[in-house]
């Protein structure tokens, strides 16, 4: 009773086509392209490490890397703390909890573009909702332009993205919380542990595998944030909110510097690859920790 030898290969045709033509092939090609000077209109010219040298000696690129670091550095803890808080909250057995979970998840399914529209409007200077409310209740004559001023634009994007994505990480944490055996809590209650002690000595340690996974997912998510920048700031004002992933798009499809953009995409690729590798390597050990 066996399948024919050829069957798995026939079944895998679409998967392999996708893997070869839209993943592995382009990955290799992008690596090669990163060593060339190449716009769309003339054939690529080999320039060795030229693009990488240009990147690392460019002040703009250093600023872009710094922005990327700030974005990830604030988004990741922000979204994780918000999500863990939400997960602990909706893990309580109360009437109507399914409703609240569904509701907190709502921004996740909504497109980034419409979220960007909503928040651009709320935050738009003078006529935006926030400005109107603030001027109504507090006597503040002028608020800064949160999207139009370079010192605020990036942080505004981070805030909006945490607001949008927290529901996703919440679901992941919730699954982790529900895997913690109830008996530990019961035993701790008998020993007279406080809510904080239970959280500190039971929930947090036993949640470690989940937390680690959520950390990796959140880091990669932060590095992939393109749509929100596109719709809310277009990377501006003056590169203030341009991150690596947005810069790849601009250089490739606005300036048509394909080689240069490929070099950037490779830097991004290496960063993501490191985190993917860490995930694969440490996942088993963390999982053992809980069992």
């Amino acid at each position: 009773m066996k399948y024919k030898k050829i069957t798995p290969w026939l079944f895998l045709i679409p998967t392999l086509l996708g893997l070869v033509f839209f993943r592995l092939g382009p990955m290799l090609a992008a690596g090669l392209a990163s060593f060339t000077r190449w716009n769309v209109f003339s054939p690529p010219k080999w320039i060795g490490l030229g693009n990488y040298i240009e990147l690392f000696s460019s002040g703009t690129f250093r600023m872009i890397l710094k922005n990327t670091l700030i974005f990830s550095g604030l988004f990741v803890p922000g979204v994780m703390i918000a999500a863990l808080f939400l997960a602990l909250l909706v893990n309580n057995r109360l009437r109507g909890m399914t409703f609240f979970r569904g509701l907190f998840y709502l921004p996740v399914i909504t497109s980034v573009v419409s979220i960007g529209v909503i928040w651009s409007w709320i935050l738009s200077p003078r006529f935006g909702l926030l400005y109107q409310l603030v001027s109504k209740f507090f006597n503040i004559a002028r608020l800064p332009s949160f999207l139009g001023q370079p010192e605020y634009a990036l942080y505004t994007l981070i805030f909006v993205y945490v607001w949008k994505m927290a529901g996703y990480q919440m679901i992941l944490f919730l699954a982790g919380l529900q895997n913690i055996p109830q008996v530990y809590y019961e035993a701790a209650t008998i020993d007279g542990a406080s809510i904080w002690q239970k959280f500190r000595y039971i929930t947090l340690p036993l949640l470690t595998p989940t937390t680690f996974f959520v950390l990796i997912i959140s880091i990669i998510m932060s590095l992939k944030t393109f749509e929100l920048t596109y719709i809310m700031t277009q990377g501006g004002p003056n590169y203030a909110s341009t991150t690596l992933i947005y810069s790849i798009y601009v250089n490739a499809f606005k300036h048509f510097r394909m080689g240069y953009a490929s070099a950037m995409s490779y830097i991004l690729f290496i960063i993501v690859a490191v985190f993917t590798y860490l995930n694969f390597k440490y996942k088993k050990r963390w999982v053992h920790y809980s069992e």
Partner: protein
Amino acid sequence: MSLGRKIILYTILIAISFTTLFPFLWMFSSSFKTMGEIFSLTPSFIPDNIFAEGMWNNYKSILQEYNFLRFIFNSFVVAGLAALGQLFTCSLGGFAFARMEFRFKEVIFALMLATMMIPIQVTIIPEYFIMLKLNWYNTYLPLIVPSMLIGSFGTFLLRSTFENMPSSMEEAAFIDGVNDWQMFYMVFLPNAKPALASLFIIAFMNNWNALLRPVIYIDKPDLYTITMGLAMFKGNYGTQWHLLLAGSVLSILPLLFIYMSMQKYFVRGMLTSGTKG
């Protein structure tokens, strides 16, 4: 649980619900307002023209004059076909990985998982040239084909679904003399309906919301997806908030209906992508 604790919990829950819902509700109510009303210095939650003459003006205008009806149609075609395509690719691939033995199985599967997290921006430049060479620029195809063929998450989801089905099912069917295709299509696939539903919804949602590929591959307004149409509208007529907000509501509604009617599949699918990805 004590009554006091219950009250505190509900208070927090309601406060957070408000933070989540308020931007949406405000957008919804404002999508009926006239431009003058939106820019009024004393904003009101209830639009003046509600249930009155001209209530639907913004929606009529954005759907007809600004072609959003067409964009919605395009999005349904693109997201629907890409999601169906992913069901095809992933169920076949997942079945092969789950139930069959073949050379390089582990290597192929590992490669698929390893490349799952890599952002499309890494592969988009070579992909762009493939699309130019194939003459697919300004067609639906670049929005559908790569997405339907790269289904690492879906393949993973269906592999575990098929792996968890009993071997007795397989053995009995072999004795009955089914061929390999029938085994897949008639014996296993009907039992995977919940996983297929999860995958369809998630793939549909991702493609509905996608922005990068439409922006790169489409510059004919007739082919814009709703997401791209909305982004373009914001770029061109960014101050016409009354229309922009109506367009934004339209881009959310279809997903909202799907989400509300099939919430359990959404969450189940996301969980698989989360805990096992």
